[in-house]
């Protein structure tokens, strides 16, 4: 059928517009696109992926082997290779009591803080969602302020609030007849303090995310549920939570990564003290690697964050990909 109406005109005139091969290559869409993305690629490979692998390499060295002169001249020496123990730093760390304290404190810090941030964020989001729409902006704006202040700055305020001799909290407590609390002096209170500050900084972020998720649940669903006879609790359980599940998961996973890798709060508030009881991987790695000058040991410590970060990242990626497929 297709050729039924084809006229038998002579073939159409051709004009030769073939640019030479090089120009053609640079005019190709994919080439232009690659060039536009090139700075990003260089940045990612040069300043993220390479350093990450470099950290693995560094962690296998000994402190003396990281001097630049050694790396340049002596790396090939057989006797040095004989004493080269790739897992020496790891073995050393496993024998240190402080290391296990850091593992314990990092997990305690991250798990407790994320759970409380998520709970507090969820409750707050509900309260904000509950009040009339025109007041919501004001409250939301006020409640997000802890997230906006640079954490190093706001932790300074907490440090002053927890000051051993001039604590404004202790002033209130003694005024009410309670004992003074050694906020940063006692190990358990110090742990409590860093977690509290982390919750203070992070809960507003959860609130904003959950609020956005709450707003995206169509009203008709609640109306349908109400008509089906669902009470307040059942509406949350059967409508709100399933609809928000994705956001809840992603926010919690994001926060797990950020909290687990936290540095600012502990560094400013306790600097790991008292007696290294509140060190996280990041602060301890800083203390050993930068302040102590033992780069390989510091790199080893920071690498212990990788497994947990990787697990969280895999789950986030799975969630995001799932959503991409649904869309």
């Amino acid at each position, binding site marked *: 059928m297709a050729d039924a109406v084809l006229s038998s005109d002579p073939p159409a005139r051709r004009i030769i517009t073939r640019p030479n091969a090089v120009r053609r290559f640079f005019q190709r869409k*994919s080439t*232009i*696109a*690659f060039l*536009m*993305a090139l*700075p*990003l*690629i260089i*940045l*990612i490979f040069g*300043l*993220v*992926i*390479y*350093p990450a692998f*470099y*950290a693995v390499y560094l962690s296998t060295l000994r402190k003396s082997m990281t001097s*630049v002169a050694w790396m340049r001249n002596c790396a090939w020496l057989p006797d040095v290779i004989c004493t080269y123990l790739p897992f020496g730093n790891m073995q050393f760390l496993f024998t240190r009591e402080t290391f296990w304290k850091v593992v314990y404190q990092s997990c305690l810090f991250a798990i407790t803080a994320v759970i409380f941030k998520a709970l*507090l964020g969820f409750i*707050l989001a*509900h*309260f904000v969602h*509950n009040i009339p729409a025109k007041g919501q*902006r004001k409250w939301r704006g*006020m*409640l997000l*302020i802890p*997230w*906006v*202040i*640079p954490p*190093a700055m*706001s932790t300074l*305020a907490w440090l*002053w609030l927890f000051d051993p001799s*001039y604590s*404004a909290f202790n*002033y209130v407590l003694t005024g009410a007849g309670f004992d003074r609390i050694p906020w940063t002096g006692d190990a358990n209170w110090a742990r409590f303090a860093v977690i509290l500050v982390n919750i203070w900084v992070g809960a507003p972020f959860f609130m*904003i*995310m959950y609020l956005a998720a709450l707003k995206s649940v169509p009203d008709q669903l609640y109306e349908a549920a109400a008509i089906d006879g669902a009470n307040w609790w059942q509406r949350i359980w059967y409508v709100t939570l399933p609809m928000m599940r994705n956001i809840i998961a992603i*926010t919690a996973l*994001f926060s797990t*990564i*950020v909290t687990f890798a936290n540095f600012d709060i502990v*560094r*400013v508030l306790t600097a790991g003290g008292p007696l290294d009881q509140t060190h996280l*991987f990041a602060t301890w790695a*800083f203390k050993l*690697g*930068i302040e102590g000058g033992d*780069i390989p040991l510091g*790199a080893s410590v*920071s*690498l212990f964050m990788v497994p947990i*970060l990787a697990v*969280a*990242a895999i789950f986030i*990626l799975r969630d*995001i990909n799932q959503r991409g497929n649904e869309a």
Partner: protein
Amino acid sequence: MTAATVTSNKGAPSRKTAYGSMSRDRTWALRWSYFFLVIFAAFFLLPPIYMFITSLKTSAEISAATNPWWVYNPTLANYAELLTKPEYLVFFRNSVVVSTFVVTITMLISIPAAFALSRMRFWGSATLATGVFLTYLVPDTLLFIPLFKMFAVFHEVTGIQLLNRWWVLLVVYPTLTVPFCTWIMIGYFASIPKELDEAAIIDGASWFQTLTRIFIPVALPGIIAATIFAFTVSWAQFLYPLAFTTSVDQLVLPVGIITTLIRGDVFAWGQIMTGALLGALPPLIIYAFLMDYYIAGLTAGATKG
């Protein structure tokens, strides 16, 4: 309103109670909401308010055993002293310069990259988009030690010293800002209908013109959100400047305040709080004026893309 009209209807007395109790429930839910919101707002605003209170006190009042929650002799002396202190002004200048440059660099890298990744497929572009997102998840605390060593080796090899120079931060901050900005810009660009760039191409626009004359203006809200993000991240960054800079004239604000003002001297707290408050002010001011963009950028990471 509805309740009032219905309850006035004498033909349906049973409805009256139902509607009445429902609105009473609402009222109580509202009261509880406000009650808790006030409590939480007090908790959330306490540190910045206490910063402000302390910043208005003299050293004498701070060290006195008076009520710390009240200012008996308000003074602006801390502000005056800090703003005439050369080193604090240097911190502030360094922070401003670093943040401005980082924002510019970030936008120059991430906008073209996001455009290429969302519109002009090339070999490996899908993998790269995922890679961008994964890079965003790599925390600074994992990279500061290898970066420190890399810069030291770089100095040995090339003779160019990067450590203890404020501009080393221009090299490392983009690792924190570029992945996220690229990621959210990919999301914003992807929401622009495909026909719009086709129309531009038929109208005779090159890829570059399509980007500058169509995509950037249309995705402007996203670009503002990304700019705010890049600025706040570089303003607040603490670990990298702490690790890579030490000389007083090279420090940025957060590190400067913490390393130079804290000397275990209790009487400096007025100045420390003043410094911290002034340091927190630029992000707060941006937030106050561009709150909607700020929040859009915050939620974009998980809700777009």
